[in-house]
């Protein structure tokens, strides 16, 4: 393969990360080549650069591809090569899709951007879905849900929130996104509202098992009252679902006597 400079590798890495394209980087911490040598691995299995040994490269490419299935970072030992390699997968950022450019959606967009999510607002009402209200959103789609979803790629790292309180928008939105493999679907509304919605939609042939997966009423139980607090409760729920966490009080997890708890804090 052709020689690739560290500068070219750095440029390709930064472009991929900035554009949200999946890439893995392998850094030689110890091994056959010069410490600090880097190689990029793309989802296609192509590599950019080399760690200095073709067989080691092959092994690392295979491991990086495997790691892309569950993106993470780790140091790996390759004893046959007396090598230690740090491999890190840079996945595309998580995507928050908000149906309904309502008041709650404004602080929700702020929280999601701080946490590194890409944010899309979809609402057919241009009074709600516009740049003045959402200067911080990545994308605004002023369309009905059926039309909007055509422009949204849904997968395990897509988190969908439905906020309009208006069945004319909420129900088509639910119908359009359910069963597409999203990481999370939550819908605003009381237990009663959701039960009625559930019944109506089941009558229209929506699979009740899919409806049962919807987080409704939405959000963690934070006692939220203001739109900002409700947005926080929704965002916290999404983070917990994303990490498969129980979302309880940390204090109540693995309780232990305070007197012996010398290493806490930070």
């Amino acid at each position, binding site marked *: 393969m052709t020689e690739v400079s560290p500068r070219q590798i*750095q440029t390709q890495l930064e472009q991929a*990360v900035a554009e949200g394209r999946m890439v893995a980087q392998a850094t030689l911490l110890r091994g056959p080549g010069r410490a*600090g040598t880097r190689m990029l691995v793309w989802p296609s299995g192509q590599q950019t650069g080399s760690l200095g040994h073709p067989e080691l490269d092959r092994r690392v490419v295979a491991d990086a591809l495997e790691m892309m299935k569950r993106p993470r970072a780790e140091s790996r030992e390759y004893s046959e090569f007396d090598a230690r390699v740090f491999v890190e997968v840079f996945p595309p950022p998580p995507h928050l899709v908000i149906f309904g450019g309502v008041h709650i959606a404004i602080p929700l967009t702020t929280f999601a951007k701080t946490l590194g999510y890409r944010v899309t607002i979809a609402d057919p009402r241009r009074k709600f879905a516009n740049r003045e209200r959402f200067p911080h959103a990545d994308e605004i789609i002023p369309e009905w849900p059926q039309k909007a979803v055509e422009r949204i790629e849904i997968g395990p790292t897509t988190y969908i929130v439905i906020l309009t309180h208006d069945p004319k928008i909420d129900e088509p939105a639910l119908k359009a996104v359910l069963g597409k493999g999203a990481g999370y679907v939550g819908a605003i509304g009381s237990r009663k509202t959701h039960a009625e919605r559930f019944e109506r939609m089941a009558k229209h042939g929506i699979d009740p098992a899919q409806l049962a997966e919807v987080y409704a009423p939405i959000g963690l139980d934070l006692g939220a009252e203001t739109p900002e607090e409700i947005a926080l409760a929704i965002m916290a729920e999404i983070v917990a679902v994303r990490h498969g966490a129980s979302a309880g009080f940390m204090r109540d997890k693995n309780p232990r006597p305070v007197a012996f708890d010398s290493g806490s804090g930070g």
Partner: protein
Amino acid sequence: MRDVLEAIQKWRKEGKRVALATVVKAEGSAPRREGARLAISEDGEMAGSVSGGCVETDVMYQALDVLKSGEPRLLRYAITDDMVWEVGLACGGTIEVWVEPLPEASAEPEFPQEEKP
């Protein structure tokens, strides 16, 4: 990485050299995990973090050395009784931090791109 990219690109525009510190191994209750990053400019400015704030200053001085020598290095921080009040980790645990001088990135691609969407 994404969280420190903006700072890195800003420092480069100002003509500063940049070092990057990356947690490559975290054990026990270390506050930040593998992949956590701290970027350091040649003026000692910092962005991001590799711990809860307890080792960043030391990493920064090491990074300035790395920029001088041009050679990357691996740092290891572990909590010990006599280190608690020095550079020990407030959350306990052990971390290994890789510190490397960052090559400049070109503003425009000067080679064929792979994996364009």
